């Protein structure tokens, strides 16, 4: 196949022009910016909701700005319409859960609210910031304002957020020292609620029900290996575990235990100490 040579050649002048315009007016900064917003390791949410002083108004302009950010960063997994049908979805996880969140469904795993409730804005903000170990990188590279814009756009994808007033889980007490007595009490709780049926006796995620669990979309859902806290999708700090246990993971196999612990919430902190004692990392 022949194409005329004058069409084939790339103009040196054009290249020079493109290089010059690309570089003009741009300063390559080597000074390094400190992270805006939340720190990497110590996030108090949702035990006490942070005021997030930099929170911006939720309005149409910020929703639209959030859409632009979504199309840069989130569309690959969550899809054009936010239904979790991005081109990466099945390569990320062919047959097993989790698949990317369907933002139109109104079902969210990572909440500080009661099971069946919508998440708080701060819940969404936290997930965007921290990511999900194994599956979603954290977006700390976005400014705090931009992360709020993403939150607002995501909320706009589901009518369930409109006028939602989610009820927060009840938080009683604070993390307690992991004494032998506390761990022992936690072990009793682990047995009482049959956590081993899914997570296994040693917490390896190999309980007798492990092979049968599926999420609401029919994907196989292996229970978490409790020996590997770094893989906990909802975080591994005591506050994170409290939230996971009490709120459950809607859409998945992990139920909410808030009703079971009604009046004995202190036991949750013992259970958390027991879970942490299983860590092999």
């Amino acid at each position, binding site marked *: 196949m022949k194409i005329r040579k004058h069409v084939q050649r*790339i103009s040196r002048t054009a290249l020079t022009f*493109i290089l010059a315009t690309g570089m003009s007016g741009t300063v390559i900064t080597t000074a390094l910016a400190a992270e805006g917003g939340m720190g990497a390791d110590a996030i108090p949410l949702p035990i006490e909701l942070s005021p997030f002083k930099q929170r911006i108004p939720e309005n149409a302009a910020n929703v639209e700005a959030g859409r632009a950010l979504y199309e840069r*960063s989130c569309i690959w997994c969550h899809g054009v319409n936010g239904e979790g049908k991005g081109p990466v979805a099945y390569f990320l996880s062919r047959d097993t859960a989790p698949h990317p969140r369907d933002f139109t469904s109104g079902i969210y795993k990572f909440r500080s609210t009661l099971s069946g409730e919508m998440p708080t804005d701060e819940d969404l903000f936290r997930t965007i910031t921290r990511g999900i170990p194994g599956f979603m990188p954290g977006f700390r590279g976005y400014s705090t304002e931009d992360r709020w814009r993403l939150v607002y756009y995501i909320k706009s994808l589901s009518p369930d957020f409109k006028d939602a007033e989610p009820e927060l889980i009840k938080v009683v007490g604070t993390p307690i020292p992991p004494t032998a007595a506390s761990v022992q009490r936690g072990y009793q709780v682990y047995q009482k609620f049959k956590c081993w049926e899914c997570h296994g006796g040693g917490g390896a995620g190999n309980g007798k029900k492990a092979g049968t669990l599926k999420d609401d979309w029919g994907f196989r859902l292996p229970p978490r290996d409790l020996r590997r806290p770094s893989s906990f999708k909802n975080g591994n700090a005591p506050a994170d575990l409290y939230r996971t246990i009490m709120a459950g993971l809607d859409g998945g196999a992990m139920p909410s235990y808030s009703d079971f612990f009604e009046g004995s919430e202190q036991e949750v902190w013992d259970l958390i100490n027991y879970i942490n004692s299983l860590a092999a990392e």
Partner: protein
Amino acid sequence: MRITRLTRRYCPTALLALFTMIIAWTSVIPEAGAVPAFARKFNVSCNVCHTRPPRLNPFGQRFQENGYQIPGTSDGSVSRKRLLGGELGGATLDAISNYMAVRLRADIQQASFRDATITEASDDIEIILPNIVNIFFAGTASDDLSFFFEAEYASQGEGAVAFERAFLVFDNLGGHQVANIKVGRFDPAAMYSFPTHRQQINPVGPKAETAAFPPPIDRIPLLPLAFSAKMFGLSRGQRLADSAAPTDPDLLSEGFAILPFEPLFYNAPVSNGISVHGRPFGTNFLYQVGIVQAQTAENESRTTFDRYLMLRYDWLGEYSDFSISGFIYNADKAAMPTLNPAGTLIYATDAVDWQRYGIAARWTSKWWDIYGTIIWDEIDQPVFAMAPASLSTWDTDAMGISIEADYLLNAKWLIGVRYDSMDAGGLSLLPPALQGSDPAINQDASFIAVIAKYYPRPSIGLYARYHQNLESSVKLPTNVFGGVEHPARNLKSMITVGVDMAF
């Protein structure tokens, strides 16, 4: 390091047994031991960026385009980094494990030839452990300042495909994805819809001698033939011959001969130069322009540069992504038509210009990954000063096609098939007084390859692959290419089992 040549007999049972043992071994490797640098840094699975390693999925492509920063962000100084210097600032650093990674490939190869080659007896089994080892240092030094350094050890010997990259990228100049400038030694086609690197069916290097002309080719490389030079009868000219005796074929330097099967130009594994890419008009449209140091131009003492332009359009759908790319690459005075009729090299009166054009497309849908490219090459008509060389026949056009389809059977198994075809150009017929009844020299080549790949862990791929030459045998006289079979025909088939792992 090649350990040994096991046996001259083909033994599929032994290969199968060994492959099974490797699978069993890797199945008990702790998962934490197999996470490459970027996955470690961002605490995600390899499959966030890969369809299956080493192929990038659309998210991984954008991560690469953005200078190893999360798409849409400029998080080069933030994500998973420590601030040194406290309030004084000054530097943020990754832990070394967040930017250092090692990739190791090892093969057991069984090639089958029509005729014995010059230096290799046919039908040997070779264990090549390791085949290729790459050590990467890649990441971000700051916001929008990225680096990539790759040191490679390749054991495939002379003529092996050597991938060694080292470059800086200044990202997001003039605004998000307006311009990203890459400077250094890089692979130009990294953003093409069918990139040169990252093949599920890894390249198998050639066994050839480039310090001779015509180049003896024991075994052609097994790689996407569309990337190949495709032109026969070309050299890098007198500058790579001994200056005192530029016509003596015994005094040639390594790399003198241009192998018709080596990847070149835009599709070269590595080039030195500057590239600019970006998406200033939204997320769908990508441009890339570049200038790179000429890879083949000779006969000129000054350094010359090749130029290229690539445009790409991306479309996203439900569970799918489609991209189409087109490029043009122009190389002035790129190669010297050369003949060796009787032990003396004869050069054309001038080096020829070389143009390359290509289009590529890729479609991913759920667990399918299908991609292909057509690449055309065109050189000027060679001119020789006098007979008999002036009576030689040259084909100035060539074309190559490579198409691959990969299918994810389940989370751990991938199968793939690739078809390669090369419509060769360059020297077609020697002058009548020299050719006798020889068939055309620039014989076409085509292969089909199939692969089954098993990932016991996301970053460990165990594979078995088979290449079949689709062309029938064409005899050529001895001394034209050093053997009694044309190199495009001599390799009948190859079966390979191996491992491609990163950690």
